[in-house]
């Protein structure tokens, strides 16, 4: 009975953005930002970058709304002409694929370290990718429904866990505020901005929204929720483990949850629950990027068979995920992705928007 293409509501768009943004970053965010900032003002960086990203996001959806019903892969052609559009589209597709691979690899590393020490990585990854393909081959409607199941579970468990760590929390660890002026805050902007990658999904999702006028609402809400979660995380982790404690740990958020015990509850230790929801989040990020890459290929090359493309991408993502030799390599890949993301999805949309305004391409606001 569902023959028509799926449209998503504004709430669903928010869910997609949040699910995409919350990914591998949340376990490492306190470390990367603390290292860069060097003072306890990490949380200010997070808020600031949240605001910046909101601005970038609004530019991005403004661009999308000029071309109602078209994804970025379709309308770039109208703005820049075919050749540049192919190059840009191809870059974006590569980006989405590599993100998927990166998230999978990080998931496999953490799972291999904390949950399944002796299980080979390929077994962990394969099961993960197969369930992912089962989900995304159902189309956007299925993806968004699964996301809507995963997100509340994640947020509730995550917030409860982080707040439970209040017994370790010392406000002293967060002082002094702006002790060394504003410079450290700006230094921390880069790593915290990188953790916000994910808003770019709206380049594609705006086309599928029932009510594209509300896409900037969706964007703001998505970024707001993510910022709130990041903020709680960073404040609690820095407050509990102190700056020096964080720098030496690979996954500080996980270590925070490991480091406290609450007597009298069934679970005295909560890292298993955190890992569970975190794996789900990685699953959603991987799936949506895989989907975006498939949509990209479909739209760029005007193909019809999106399912075939999805299956076809599987081995490429797998090989990319297996490329980094160590965890450090993986993190380097992550940083690289962050840099690419700034160019592709922060600067480029602005340029495209200006170009489309100058060349008078695209309609008024949809």
């Amino acid at each position, binding site marked *: 009975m569902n023959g028509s293409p799926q449209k998503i509501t504004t709430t669903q768009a928010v869910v997609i953005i949040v699910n995409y943004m919350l990914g591998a970053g949340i376990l490492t965010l306190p470390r990367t930002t603390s290292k860069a900032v060097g003072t306890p003002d990490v949380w200010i960086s997070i808020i600031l970058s949240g605001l910046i990203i909101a601005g970038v996001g609004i530019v991005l959806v403004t661009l999308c709304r000029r071309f109602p019903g078209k994804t970025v892969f379709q309308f770039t052609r109208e703005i820049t002409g075919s050749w540049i559009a192919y190059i840009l589209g191809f870059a974006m597709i590569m980006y989405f694929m590599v993100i998927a691979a990166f998230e999978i690899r990080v998931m496999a590393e953490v799972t291999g370290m904390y*949950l399944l020490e002796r299980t080979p990585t390929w*077994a962990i990854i394969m099961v993960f990718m*197969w*369930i992912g393909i089962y989900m995304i081959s159902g189309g956007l409607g299925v993806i968004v429904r699964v996301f809507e199941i995963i997100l509340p579970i994640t947020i509730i468990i995550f917030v409860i866990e982080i707040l439970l760590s209040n017994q370790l929390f010392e406000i002293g660890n967060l002082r002094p505020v702006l002790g060394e002026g504003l410079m450290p805050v700006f230094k921390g902007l880069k790593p915290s901005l990188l953790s916000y990658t994910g808003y770019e999904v709206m380049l594609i999702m705006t086309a599928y929204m029932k009510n594209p006028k509300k896409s900037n609402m969706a964007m703001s809400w998505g970024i707001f929720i993510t910022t709130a979660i990041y903020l709680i995380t960073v404040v609690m982790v820095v407050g509990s483990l102190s700056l020096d404690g964080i720098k030496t740990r*690979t996954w500080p958020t996980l270590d925070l949850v490991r480091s406290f015990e609450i007597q009298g509850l*069934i679970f005295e230790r909560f890292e298993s629950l955190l890992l569970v929801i975190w794996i789900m989040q990685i699953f959603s990020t991987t799936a949506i990027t895989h989907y975006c890459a498939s949509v990209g290929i479909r739209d760029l090359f005007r193909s019809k068979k999106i399912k075939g493309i999805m299956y*076809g991408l599987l081995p*490429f993502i797998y090989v990319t995920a297996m490329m980094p030799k*160590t965890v450090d390599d993986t993190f380097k890949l992550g940083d690289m992705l962050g840099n690419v993301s700034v160019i592709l999805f922060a600067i480029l949309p602005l340029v495209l928007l200006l170009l489309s305004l100058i060349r008078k391409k695209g309609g008024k606001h949809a």
Partner: protein
Amino acid sequence: MSFSTQKSGNYCDQTGTQYLGIPAASHAEKCRGGNMWSTILSYVPKGPIWIQAFLVFIIPIGITMTTRWINAAIKRGSFSRSKQPTISSKDISPAAKGQGQGTETGHYANIKLTENYNTNLISVKESFGKNADVHIREFTIRGTNTRAAVIYTEGLVDQDLVDDHLITPLMLEGVPLLKQEGFLHPDNAHLLSAYLKDQLLPVSLVEETKSLQELSVGVLFGKNALLVDGLPGALLIGGHKIKSRGVNEPVSEGLIRGPRIGFTEQLSDNTGILRRYGSDQSLFIQKYEVGSRIKKDLAIAYIQDIADPKLVTEVCKRIEEMDMDSMLESGYVEQLIEDSTLSPFQQVLNTERPDRVIGALLEGRVAILLDGTPFVLVVPVTFSMLLQSPEDYYERWIPGTFLRMLRFVAAMLALLAPALYISFISFHPGLIPTKLVLTIIETRTGVPFPSIIEVLIMEISIEILREAGIRLPKPIAPAMGIVGGLIIGQAAVQAGIISQFLVIVVAVTAISSFTIPVYSAGLTLRILRFAAMFSAAILGLYGVVMFFLLVCTHLARLSSFGVPYVAPAVPYHMNDWKDFVIRAPLNMMRMRPDMNKPIDKDRKE
């Protein structure tokens, strides 16, 4: 926690000398140039990874192809691709073979009844009259000396009706003297028929027929046939009367508070119950005849100004498409109209409770009633409905909500408890509290099996016990429960093949699965529990998470008659959440569930 990081310098050494074969003297210089290429080369994955990549690609494709093939085979009805010509009853009927004309099918198709009483009687006797339970009573209509015969099937007709309302008026009263003259002439035979119907047969259901086929069907299904000399064709009188049981409390769905009334095996009783309890003039009941050989009545009930017309058309369409020689139970209908045959989840709800059906109709759903079974089907169904009981609405909202939440927790336990036990014991004892681990390990000392085998032993024996308990005669069942549950459990622990802690886990799981109000849904969870156990045994907690995601994805992909199976949980229908995990106060539930797209959205005037 330590990761070996390879220094790029080392790397350069190895690759520089080995792969490029550069002399040691110029090594330092060339290293920079060769560095980039060798680094890139070193990142190209090795052989096994390509094989794995191929596997990643080919296995889901294989699975998709297989399911597609199986689905197609199910639709086709056989695994062989060639279309075998099947022989159905329609093909061997005389009409289809071209014998006679017309559209009737069946054994006596297109044989017409005549005005001649004797011919008619012979053709009846030669055809279905041979049946041992078909009786023919011949007599003369008083006053006209006209020969007549009543034909009926014993056990299907009301004997009193035959005696008091057919034979008595015709034999004792007959045609009065004044009118006898008129009927004696053969041309006036049609007048006799009219007179009989108007004056002599005090019965509400009378119809005329001229075909032997209709006559035989009518008689064999419980009508009385009347043949009168000179009358063209025959009269079919009265309806069948089968002994039916009373409306007892439904066995499969118990309630403490609520009507003690259940559907019966008779369709007319069931539609009657619906009319009486849902006395709304817009309750619409539409009848179908299903089954290609053994015909049965099937009724679709819905409330006209609530149910989505598209849904009703879809239901009608699927019912018309059914093709099966007979529908023994509504389970047949359910399996023939469901969306996905390969899914472990039921996509049609079956219930014996009229109140549940009325409730569903008021939410804009459609009910399907089949003659011969007390189980009524309701479509579309969503996952949340399987965990709801009518009693949730009869008790006040606070206990109602409590019971709902309890059932959700119980369902999760019934699905995942043994899997979690396996994953924590076999893979991550470090993740549960130390004291608890010590206790469990203590009870497990001496158990010779890995936890998966241990759990399987217990779970399978519990399943066997449950099955045995259902099949056994009622008086023996409790005794078996005692033997199975208490003695075997206790003995197994003492023998040291399972741990006491596991007995608790298995018992909690079994009891949790009893709380699910819909029996079929309980079956689904029981099956999936085994899948969860195996995934936990292979991949530990990670396997359980993957299993959960798989089930979520499957539920998200599933839909029942166009309504997503996971509604109203997702997509977020804030209004429908009032009747999901929380059962809001009745006054607050003024809107009908949005997911069924009802025409009349408001429950109040």
